[in-house]
């Protein structure tokens, strides 16, 4: 939990979310599941509702679907105190945490300023699934430096070219994969689209 008590939620600033929470969240969940099962494939979430300022549609949809009262959530400092925070408190009901190591989910809107992957909850030997799932909001899912990926859910090899990630990010992903079964899972969103790289995916940095 954050050190100070959260401010009283101003309902007047909260925008609506899913019109039909059951069906829409199931539709989003299906796409997130497919993205994690087939790492690197890109899925479309254009049917999701508008997200508040600072969040892309796909980021909002993932938050509405996955975050709830049982998942302490680390929010990017850029989102703290804004309409996006209030929107998530109202619609997801997720407790917010300032401590990356306690977070079940993390929503990163500025990948270059975010803590390293190793700073988040890595899971423990009994419950490796309790590690943090990070949601990175990027400028684009294509057009960045290309890396080769392989592993469960990928036939042979595939590649991703995520834009807007900091230098050294892929080395962090390699280190994260190396300590499998521990490690964090990664979801990337940009605009209406989403892709994922679970901790089981191996990354080969091209040009090395």
């Amino acid at each position, binding site marked *: 939990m954050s050190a100070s008590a959260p401010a009283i939620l101003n*309902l*007047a600033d*909260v925008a*609506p*979310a899913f*019109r*039909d*929470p059951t069906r829409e969240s199931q539709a989003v969940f299906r796409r997130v599941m497919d993205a994690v099962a087939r790492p690197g494939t890109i899925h479309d979430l254009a049917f999701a509702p508008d997200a508040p300022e600072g969040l892309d549609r796909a980021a909002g949809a993932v938050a509405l679907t996955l975050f709830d009262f049982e998942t302490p959530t680390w929010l990017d400092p850029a989102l703290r105190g804004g309409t996006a925070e209030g929107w998530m408190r*109202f*619609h997801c009901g997720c407790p917010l945490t300032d401590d990356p190591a306690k977070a079940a989910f993390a929503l990163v809107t500025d990948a270059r300023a975010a803590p390293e992957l190793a700073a988040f909850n890595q899971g423990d030997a009994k419950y490796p699934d309790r590690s943090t799932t990070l949601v990175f909001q990027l400028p684009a899912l294509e057009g960045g430096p290309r890396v080769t990926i392989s592993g469960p859910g990928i036939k042979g090899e595939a590649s991703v070219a995520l834009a807007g990630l900091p230098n050294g990010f892929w080395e962090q992903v390699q280190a994260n994969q190396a300590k499998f079964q521990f490690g964090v899972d990664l979801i990337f969103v940009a605009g209406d689209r989403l892709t994922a790289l679970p901790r089981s995916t191996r990354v080969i940095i091209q040009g090395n």
Partner: protein
Amino acid sequence: MPVEAVVEAASERRRWLSILAKAPSKDVIAAWDGLADRPAYRALRAPEIGMVLVRGRMGGAGDAFNLGEMTVTRAAVRLDSGETGIGYVAGRDRQHAEIAAAVDAMMQSPDLRPAVEGAVVARLARGQDERRDAAARKAAATKVDFFTMVRTRSPG
């Protein structure tokens, strides 16, 4: 707003939310349907059914204990004029929760308040007073006054 006014407004809102929450669903729906002019609104949170844990304190001052769970339906709506209302009602009637939220929103609007204050809130409050009164009368009619009979044992 001075602090007193904020506290006053909050306790007033608490009063009408309480009336809306405790009123029987059919009374709430009947009162709402009886309104001539119902404003347009959209759901901020569609009515959803859940449970809350009711806690109590022995004598109102002891340690908190879990009394039990009760079914609650909640909703939040935003009027087209901008006011946001919330409704938490006992039971599982979605329409009741949505109407409670809409009435809460209307009560916050100086323009819309006169339309619902008497026709819905006061009417439901009256119904509650009457029921409480009737129950109290019924209970009073069967009241037994216990008194202690002093029995004197005859010696021997």
